[in-house]
């Protein structure tokens, strides 16, 4: 709130209302998906549309997990969910570990070709992944990585590591070098200095990098659709397409699954968000 103007109550309400409208426009599609996930098919198809579910139900979820008596075959959603989780978590952990070390090296050490390498990482982000899908497909089929979790993990690492390096480099750069020097004088090895001083201070940066990496692999569709085939490796976003048949779309099932995709992402974001409190790096040194 600016100091030069005290807001009148009506102004504040006007701003809130405008924000509400803007947010509503942004959120309604998502909300619609969630509502759709909890209502029976008749209601989904109703015209004019029914906003509030009149007969809320969990049947859509039961159905996609194959828990309903087989009037329709269940989809292997549990498998997709497991694949998504394994692929995303593994690739996130590795990307953060490797990316953190890379970012630290870029922030702290001088070495030949540093600038070019950094620029290269950035440029790699400018290439849309899908543009590489054909060569990727060929290489992956030669390597036998088609339809494997490893194959997808490697792809997501290639996407996430450069980004993590870029992000963590910025965070490590904010931490004064003197802190690590001081820790070494205080008796730490370089390794201890990193874990006891620099790592805790970079934690918020690492947390945001982790969210980005996880969401990227959790939500990625285009490449996963090319590489994965079966319950071996197929991820949730790809599985979503199982609900479209040639002439029909199973909106109810699809919405239920979309909710399943959104929920873990939301949970993770909330968990990690509290680590995002920045500002701890300030104060130790004269700024």
């Amino acid at each position: 709130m600016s100091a030069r103007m005290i807001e009148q109550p009506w102004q504040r309400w006007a701003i809130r209302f405008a924000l509400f409208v803007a947010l509503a426009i942004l959120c309604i599609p998502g909300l619609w998906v969630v509502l759709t996930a909890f209502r029976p098919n008749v209601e989904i198809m109703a015209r004019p549309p029914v906003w509030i579910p009149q007969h809320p139900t969990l049947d859509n979820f039961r159905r996609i997990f194959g828990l309903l008596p087989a009037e329709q075959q269940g989809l292997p959603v549990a498998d997709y969910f497991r694949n998504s989780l394994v692929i995303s978590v593994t690739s996130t952990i590795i990307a953060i570990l490797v990316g953190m070390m890379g970012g630290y090296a870029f922030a702290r050490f001088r070495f030949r070709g540093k600038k070019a390498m950094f620029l290269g990482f950035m440029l790699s982000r400018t290439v849309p992944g899908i543009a590489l899908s054909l060569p990727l497909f060929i290489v992956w089929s030669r390597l036998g990585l088609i339809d494997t979790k490893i194959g997808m993990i490697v792809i997501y690492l290639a996407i996430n590591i450069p980004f993590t390096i870029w992000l963590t480099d910025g965070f490590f750069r904010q931490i004064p070098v003197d802190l690590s020097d001081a820790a070494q004088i205080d008796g730490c090895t370089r390794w201890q200095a990193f874990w006891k001083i620099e790592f805790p201070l970079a934690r918020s940066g690492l947390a945001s990098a982790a969210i980005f990496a996880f969401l990227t692999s959790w939500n990625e569709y285009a490449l996963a659709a090319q590489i994965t085939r079966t319950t071996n490796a197929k991820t949730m976003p790809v599985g979503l397409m199982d609900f479209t048949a040639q002439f029909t779309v199973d909106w109810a099932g699809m919405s239920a699954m979309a909710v399943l995709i959104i929920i873990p992402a939301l949970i993770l974001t909330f968990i990690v968000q509290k680590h995002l409190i920045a500002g701890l790096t300030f104060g130790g040194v004269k700024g």
Partner: protein
Amino acid sequence: MAEVHLSKVVKRYGALEIVHGIDLDIAHNEFVVLVGPSGCGKSTTLRMIAGLEEISGGTISIGDRVVNSLPPRARNISMVFQNYALYPHMTVRENLGFGLKIARQSPAVIEQRVNEAADILGLSPLMDRLPANLSGGQRQRVAMGRAIVRNPDVFLFDEPLSNLDAKLRGQMRVEIKKLHQRVKTTVVYVTHDQVEAMTLADRIVIMRDGHIEQVGTPIDLFERPVNTFVAGFIGSPPMNQLEAMIGSRPAGPVAVLADGTELPLPPEFAGRVTADQAVIVGFRPENLYPAGHGIPAAGQTLDMDRTVSLSEPLGTETMLFLDFGGREVQAKMLNPRLVAPGERMPFKLDLGHLHVFDRASGKSLRA
């Protein structure tokens, strides 16, 4: 016992040589101050002693150990950084105890040593604060506390006061001096402030462009600078330096200034200057004073009437600017009275305190 010896220490960054083979011997419990202009290699030298920079040549030893390839933690030193480098995520107590904790001291020992240091530095009320919630002077104190709890052989300071305002800097300077009297240790202290150097040092090391120009006690450096650089660096305001030519007169050699004024040289320069040698003559502002307003000269003086172009009253003394020997020089007036610009006054120049330097090399011509 912790002497520090530097022998032919060189620092290179790639092809660029920053420190050119310096030799320095620091005695046990001595307070040595490295001073010099920005970029002369003071911090680099200090960081080499600390082990934070590798040395490219020569030997550094602490006590009787050569420490060339030892990491900082094996050198038993502690260091206070210019920007304090406190750990932002730790409280004052944790900051102070960190080194002891790393050294796996028992909690009881840590507690006791930390409290001791906190007492010495007056930090006790601040123990549970984070560095972000401290003032500059308090952070400075914590940084010093962190250095003393570990009971090191050598203290290293890199411009520890330069982030403080003038008043606090003066206070902390006194505290550092008291601290050294209380906690006797070898100290290497880097600053570019010559007042800090003069007031704190047992011995001052003057550096320029990666070389040591002169090493000596503050009084040594003040009274017997070996070259024009040291003469200009030590003393505030700096020594007046005038170009002159040597002339020989029956009574002995004189320096002839640009305006023709002849200054008889003190006896110590007899035989060390040659006729027509191009020299720089130096004298400190306190050796040029309005008659009756200075420390009476023991020997010969040059008396002259001069017009004051500017006066700077400082309270106990007033600095006067006047033209002499072809340029503007500063004179110091003790027991000052109000002097108006343009006023003509009789001045005395104490010839016993003249310095003479060779103009080409800048070296002092004193024996």
